[in-house]
């Protein structure tokens, strides 16, 4: 019982943060920042404590609270931790204080509203990860949209209104179809079992006809694919990233994008295994397209933020690839990759924000030779670049390597049974790694080396606050890169459970007349 209290405390802290910020005077900027930092740090401590207490050898949910909320509808306030959301919750809580510290000097207008929105966002993000009830999940999922809308729209760049409306209209469209799917799913589950329930645990056991599954997975998948974003639903992302303030970009890249992949992992694939089997080739193609297309676009960008934005699309393609491989190693790699991308992209966006604060330009061509001017900055930048590429000992390596290992494992298996597509996809993904190294190194080369130049005079090097933020991120990156087994041991059982659920139908798909390509080919004499 005491354990569950700890988890509820984690969810209550952002609300306390909102109250604390609201209670302050509107012009008390410093006080608001300090109070926010303290609450965010407390939140991280609670999350770290939960991480330490989480037992990786026990399957199922831990620290669970389940109380009726809307009794007649079978809706419960149901939150709990499994291995996968554990890591993402820790990531969310970890980025919280960094975002506050990172915006210490760059946000000067409406500081009170800004921090209230940060806490609202934290609350919604933690809630989305923790929810074990579909209704609750949807509530938190949608609730993320509005604070982000305001953060981009109020503190963003020149074209912020266009960018923020595009972001909201894209995500809201996905959500509305997901809502229809939620209603239909719960209704048909009710017809089949006679109990009205939104609990993931109950819905997963439902046996839906394959055609219904297909439509439902498309509806859910569209919402998630827009969030990830998977090519071709990605066009909102570069605009949102470019126009968002640093804090917005960090949260967007660090956590919000993972909502999509987490959604696929928690809901999309496990709920509809038959449809997953049918759609696997499509998802594979889209994942690889995201990896390659994102990398190619990153290669030709002239705006620093856009390079990182497109690299996010590419990196999340690996996550999708790992998830859809349904290979245990690939799945665990996908989870590590989610966290790793959260750290590196967040760090890079923070660093871009720091240089933007000094030089007021995001044009890559305006910079050069920063290594001579701001050596400390450049060292951190180089570490993050290498982590983003996936250099061994960094978290990026663990994630990408495991994903590719899993993808090849699954590829060989289906190749043996006559389907070459997964293997081709895995090979293409390797090409993505090379492209990734190419665009990131080109970027870092032009940015840090060569003749020294920077707009608006010589920038100053990092101050203590900025160093502290970056040191925290770099430590996390190396920790995950050097000692991944610690985290993987906590996620293993959850990944296994996902693997079992998502591949549940492979066996009997053929008998339902909706065979995936592999078994179709195999059936031929």
């Amino acid at each position, binding site marked *: 019982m005491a354990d569950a209290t700890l988890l509820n405390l984690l969810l209550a802290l952002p609300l306390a943060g909102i109250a604390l910020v609201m209670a302050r005077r509107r012009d008390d900027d410093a006080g608001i920042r300090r109070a926010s930092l303290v609450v965010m740090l407390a939140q991280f401590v609670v999350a770290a404590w939960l991480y330490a207490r989480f037992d990786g050898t026990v399957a199922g949910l831990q620290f669970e609270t389940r109380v009726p909320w*809307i009794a*007649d509808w079978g809706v419960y306030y149901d939150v709990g931790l499994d291995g996968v959301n554990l890591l993402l919750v820790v990531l969310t809580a970890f980025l919280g204080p960094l975002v506050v510290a990172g915006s210490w000097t760059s946000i000067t207008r409406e500081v009170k509203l800004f921090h209230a929105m940060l806490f609202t966002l934290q609350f919604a993000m933690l809630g989305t990860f923790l929810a074990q009830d579909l209704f609750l999940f949807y509530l938190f999922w949608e609730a993320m949209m509005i604070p982000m809308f305001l953060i981009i*729209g109020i503190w963003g760049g020149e074209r912020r209104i266009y960018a*923020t409306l595009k972001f909201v209209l894209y995500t809201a469209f996905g959500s509305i179809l997901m*809502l*229809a799917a939620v209603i239909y799913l719960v209704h048909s589950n009710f017809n089949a079992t006679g109990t009205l329930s939104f609990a993931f645990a109950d819905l997963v056991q439902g046996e839906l006809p394959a055609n219904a599954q297909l439509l439902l997975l498309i509806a859910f998948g569209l919402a998630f694919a827009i969030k990830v974003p998977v090519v071709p639903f990605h066009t909102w992302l570069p605009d949102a990233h470019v126009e968002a303030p640093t804090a917005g970009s960090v949260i967007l890249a660090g956590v919000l994008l993972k909502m999509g992949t987490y959604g696929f992992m928690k809901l999309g694939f496990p709920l509809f295994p038959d449809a997953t089997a049918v759609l696997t080739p499509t998802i594979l193609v889209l994942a690889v397209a995201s990896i390659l297309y994102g990398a190619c676009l990153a290669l030709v960008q002239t705006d620093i933020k856009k390079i990182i934005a497109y690299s996010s699309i590419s990196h999340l393609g690996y996550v999708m690839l790992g998830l859809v491989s349904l290979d245990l190693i690939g799945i665990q790699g996908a989870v590590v990759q989610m966290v790793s991308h959260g750290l590196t992209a967040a760090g890079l966006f923070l660093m871009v924000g720091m240089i933007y604060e000094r030089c007021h330009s995001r044009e890559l061509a305006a910079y050069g030779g920063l290594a001579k001017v701001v050596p400390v900055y450049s060292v951190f930048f180089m570490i993050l670049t290498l982590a983003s590429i996936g250099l061994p000992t960094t978290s990026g390596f663990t994630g990408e390597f495991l994903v590719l290992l899993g993808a090849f494992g699954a590829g060989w298996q289906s190749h043996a049974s006559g389907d070459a597509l997964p293997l081709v996809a895995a090979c293409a993904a390797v090409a993505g790694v090379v492209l990734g190294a190419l665009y990131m190194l080109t970027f870092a080369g032009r940015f840090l080396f060569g003749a020294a130049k920077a707009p608006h005079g010589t920038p100053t090097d990092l101050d203590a606050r900025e160093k502290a933020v970056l040191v925290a991120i770099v430590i996390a990156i190396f920790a995950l890169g050097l000692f991944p087994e610690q985290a993987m041991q906590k996620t293993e059982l959850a990944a296994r459970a996902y693997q079992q659920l998502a591949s549940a139908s492979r066996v009997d798909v053929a008998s339902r007349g909706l065979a995936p390509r592999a078994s179709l080919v195999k059936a031929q004499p």
Partner: protein
Amino acid sequence: MNASTLLVALLPEHLLLAGIVLLIVLDIVGRAERPALSIALGAVLAAAVAAAALAFSGYQAEPFPYELAVDRPASIAKAFVLALALPVLLLARDEASGRPFHVLVLSSLYGACLIASSQSFLTLFLAIELMSLPVYVLVLLAWRRPESAEAALKYLVLGGAASATLLMGAALLFGGSGTLALSTFSHALGSRDPMSSAGLALVTAALFIKAAIVPFHAWAPDAYEGASVPVTAYMATIVKAGVLLAALRLFNAVPVERPLVDLLALLPLVSIAWGNLAAMRQPTFRRMIAYSSIAHAGYLFFALLGEGSGRYEAVVFYLVTYGLMNLLAFAALPRGVDGDGWEDRLDALKGLFSRRPYAAVTLAIAMLSLAGIPPLPGFVAKFLVFRNVMDAGYTLYGVLGLVASYLGIYFYLRVIQLMFMSPVGEAQALGQERRMALVASLACLVPTIAIAVYPDLVLRLL
């Protein structure tokens, strides 16, 4: 029928009537000016409490058999409608609305209460007229400018047309069955008799006109714009609630069958889509709310597609949350923005957050809830409606309705965008903050948040 039944069963109505009489007497004596608001508030509050008490004690009676019946659902609906009228009265405190204002509002409320209890076409017609007629005057009352007269006339003519349609439909139904009981309507839902079907269609059309469903919606934007703020709020919440309560009485719990299903699904669907699309292009706040109310009328009629048992819950919950949202929006609207002429433009909201943070945040909450964005109550209401529609097997209509509702997100967010993201427009004076409007907005904000946190609070009652 005995005297005590008559007294107890219609206690909410009696209290309203007492308020009306008292107001008129004081008016004759010449002392109505100051205590008018307190008397009206007291009467409505007492009536709401009486209705709630009747509901909780499970009181059931037929003071006039076959004409009026009081049961738990009716009393609950009355209690909610009356409670929603309280902020309207508070809003009116700051308006230069003449003396008859309170008498008219109370009479209109009397009609709305009767609707919830009516059992025959005779009482239903009387009740609807009693609710609508004072509103024609109210539209004209507050602003003596040409547009108001035009709006009132338009509203009157279309209201008259709706009444005539309702009467014609009732007559046809009477011709087919020989009785004026409302149950003839629900019986006709299952019959193939052309006369009954024609009656059915006409009565439904009358409801559509009253609720401003496309293509009978043209009066709403003009009337909403022409009236004063409290009257607009009253029309958007109470009058709409009255019409939907009438629809609930008529459809009862009988499943709707083809071809009426398609009529009942398509026109509201078009309303949702068109209301949301047209709202994007409106230059003024009240015209925008008028189109939004056209869309919301669509959702409300969608709820009637659902299975019988869930209809009452869905419609009443929607009415309560929708009413709260609208009232919250109107209460939060600062003076200067809601005024006459060019100041009514949406542009006047630019940069409101930096000048009036509380008003901006409240208005934003109202807009988000109207857009149906979780976790605000508007979402729960929308969820309930579409869940019922899809549970009844109309999956396609449910999905189309949801997609049409997506169209609405943009213009609600635009209001937020203007308030939070745009710099303050041309130097424009915002009037004094109005104390009563502040009280009214708090009276709406507290239940809004309570319902968001714990929807069962209201759902359990239904």
